[in-house]
């Protein structure tokens, strides 16, 4: 039972302690220990990727064999894409080889960019539902988003361009957008970052002390 429950908590506490101590104690030995642990972590992450990869293969294969009939073909596409990329990477001359480069340039990159660009449509349609000016808060959010979007495109410069050179120049949309981004947005982001950091540190201390152990499967 010790090896299953207490030992992992001891490992977590020890490793976290070394990382924190290395910051506060300026001794070369502890800095070397920290650097070595960071190196270990990178290697363990590679194995974690292997685990994820095997899991993806296993789940896709199971679905391809016993899943819904109309979805089986697409599971084979996932498996083919995965194995094809790996084979191209290892047998096609490495990551700088032509086969791997072809997959990156003509399959991965366009698919990745297009999927993210697709979000433009969905964010826009979601905003129609979410941004109804029902309350003061929603109205503030709506107006700010509208100004920032308009201030970033030539249309914003065009509609408010006549203000340049007058005493109302401060209402020029790109100027307002810059002020919102550099003052109000930055202040809000700072508060969010500080709040999140405090929450993360509190959770980290709970993990080190063994109070929070959901990463061990809830035991």
């Amino acid at each position, binding site marked *: 039972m010790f*090896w299953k429950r207490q030992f992992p908590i001891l490992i*977590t506490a020890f490793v976290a302690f070394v990382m924190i101590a290395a910051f506060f104690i300026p001794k070369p030995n502890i800095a070397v220990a920290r650097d070595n642990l960071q*190196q*270990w972590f990178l290697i363990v*992450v590679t194995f974690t990727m*292997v685990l994820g990869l095997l899991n993806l293969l296993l789940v896709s294969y199971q679905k391809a064999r016993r899943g819904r009939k109309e979805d089986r073909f697409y599971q084979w596409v996932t498996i083919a894409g995965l194995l094809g990329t790996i084979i191209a990477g290892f047998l096609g001359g490495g990551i700088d080889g032509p086969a791997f480069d072809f997959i990156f340039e003509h399959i991965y990159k366009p698919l990745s960019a297009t999927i993210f660009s697709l979000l433009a449509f969905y964010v826009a349609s979601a905003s129609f539902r979410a941004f109804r000016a029902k309350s003061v808060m929603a109205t503030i959010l709506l107006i700010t988003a509208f100004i920032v979007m308009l201030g970033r495109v030539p249309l914003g410069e065009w509609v408010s361009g006549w203000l340049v050179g007058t005493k109302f120049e401060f209402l020029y949309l790109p100027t307002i957008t810059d002020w919102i981004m550099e003052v109000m947005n930055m202040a809000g982001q700072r508060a969010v970052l500080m709040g999140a950091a405090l929450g993360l*540190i509190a959770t980290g201390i709970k993990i080190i002390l063994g109070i929070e152990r959901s990463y061990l499967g809830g035991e």
Partner: protein
Amino acid sequence: MMMTFAGAIGIFLAGALTLAIFSFLYKDNPVYKFAEHLFIGTSAGYWFVYNVYNVFWPNVIVAWGEAEGFWAYFNIVMPVLLGVFMLMRLIPSIAWISRWAMAFSVGMSVGFSIIMELQTNILQQIGATLSPFASLHFNNGGTAAAVNAIIILLAVLSALVYFFFSKEHTGAYGHVAKVGIWVLMITFGASFGYTVMARISLLIGRVQFLQEEWWVAIKHLIGLGS
């Protein structure tokens, strides 16, 4: 623009996959599903291969060849052993061994992020908020910067007050918290607008690709272009 046959095939494929993803705007369809599953497979494979070449190869294989002394080998064997333990998760009877590797990863992440968060997201942010006050002045064109510095300080404080839930948001404290919500709403609105613009620029990039490269590749393949 000179184009090789292989290059034209590659660009044609990229354009076809781009259109396959965009076809989802009409409705979910087999062409989109094909492109989506292909993306899952290739992205998983791509990052795996990338990691093996850039992390595993230099830090394990090359390092093993150059290692001298007990500690050099120890620093290679231990993480590999932990990595193998991680894979034990796939064998139910000994899956519990993977907890050691998981515990190591969690400990590293926690130790690293506590220091990083403390340094970058707390101390540096406090410093950046307060440092303008060291040279605050309202003359020689410094008024705008001074007013902005005061607004930033008040906005940060009010938003932090809103995040503090140990005290009930009533009375004067509640009013400050309300200002904090306004600040956060402006922030979310600005972030939203900024994100939409980033996505739109990606969309423009894809449309430009279809117009300027894909179309040229098609003309090349059917013998109309150079």
